[in-house]
C-alpha cells in the first residue's frame, strides 16, 4: 500500500529496473478471470437494468401524479422479478391509497410474506385502511 522511492544515481551495482508493462502470469490470469466475471454479469444484467429503470420511472410517475403510468411500470418490474421488495412495496402503497376496496385488497396481496422495515411500515401505514391493520403483526429481530 505504499510506494518507496530509491535513489539509484551513481551506484555501480544498482539493480536492473523491471521491464515496463510486464506483469506476473498469476496477475494476468486473475485479471482474465475478473474480466470473465464482468462479462458474464453483463450478460445477466439487461433484465435487471430494465427493471431498475422501470422502478425509477414508476417513482417519477407517481411523484408527477400519474398513478396509472406508475402502476404499469411497477407491473413491468414485477413481471420480470416478482420477488422485488421495493417494487412490491411501491405498488402496494399505490393500490392501498386507491379508494376502491378491490384495489386495496390487491395492494395488500403484494405485501404478503414481506417483512417491512420502520421506514417502509411508515409509508404503508400512512395509506393503510383501518380495516386491514390486523393483517400485520410486529416482528422482533
Amino acid at each position, binding site marked *: 500500500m*505504499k510506494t*518507496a522511492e530509491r535513489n539509484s544515481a551513481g551506484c555501480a551495482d544498482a539493480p536492473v529496473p523491471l521491464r515496463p508493462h510486464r506483469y*506476473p502470469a498469476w496477475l494476468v490470469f486473475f485479471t482474465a478471470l475478473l474480466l470473465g*466475471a464482468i462479462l458474464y454479469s453483463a450478460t445477466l444484467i439487461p433484465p435487471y437494468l430494465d427493471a*431498475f429503470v422501470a422502478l425509477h420511472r414508476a417513482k417519477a410517475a407517481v411523484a408527477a401524479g400519474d398513478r396509472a403510468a406508475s402502476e404499469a411500470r411497477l407491473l413491468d418490474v414485477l413481471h420480470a422479478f416478482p*420477488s422485488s*421488495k421495493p417494487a412490491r412495496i411501491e405498488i402496494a402503497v399505490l393500490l392501498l391509497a386507491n379508494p376502491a376496496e378491490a384495489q386495496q385488497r390487491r395492494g395488500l396481496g403484494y405485501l404478503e410474506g414481506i417483512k417491512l422495515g420502520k421506514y417502509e411500515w411508515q409509508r404503508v401505514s400512512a395509506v393503510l385502511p383501518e380495516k386491514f391493520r390486523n393483517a400485520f403483526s410486529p416482528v422482533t429481530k
Partner: protein
Amino acid sequence: MFIIPGFLIAIVTFPGVIAHEVGHRFFCDLADVPVYEVCYFRIGNPSGYVIHVPATSLRASFLVTIGPLIVNSVLCAVICFAPIIALNLDVADLPGVFLLLLWLGISIGMHAFPSPQDAENFSRAVRASGRRGLLYLVAKAFQFLVRLANALRFLWFDLFYAAIIASLTPVLITHATTG
C-alpha cells in the same frame, strides 16, 4: 465506531491491495519512472509496495500517486455496476456472481485512496519542485485531500468512498431516465 486492525482489512480486501499496487506500477510505467520491485500483496505492513526511483517531475510524481485513485475507482464503478443494480431491486435468488463481484468491487474501491506513504512521497516532490504555479496549487490541494482521507480511515471513510463510487453509475442512470 467499530475498529478492525488494518492487516485484517487488507486480508479481506486483498484484491484492492493488488489493484492499488498495479495502479502505482502502471502509472510509473506511463510516466517513465523506473520500477525496481513490486510486492502486489503480502500479509504484513505495508500489505503491498512498489519501489521506484524518485519521479523527476511533479507531474510524474502526481501521476504515480494518483494512479491507484484512478485505477481502483474506475474498476470499482465498473465491477459494482451490475451487482448494485440487482441489489437495488432486492430480489430473491440473486446470482452468486453478483455477490462475488460486489465483494471484489468494494474491496478494490476501499483501496483507491493513496496511502500516507504515497502522500509523503508526493509532499516531498512538491517541496523539491519549488514551483508556485497552478500545478503546485492542485498538488497541495490533492496532498491535503489524501491526508484527510487517511485520517478519516478509522471512521471507515474508505468503505464509504467505495460505496459512493459503486452507486454512482446507477444513480446517474436514474437521473438520466427520470429527468
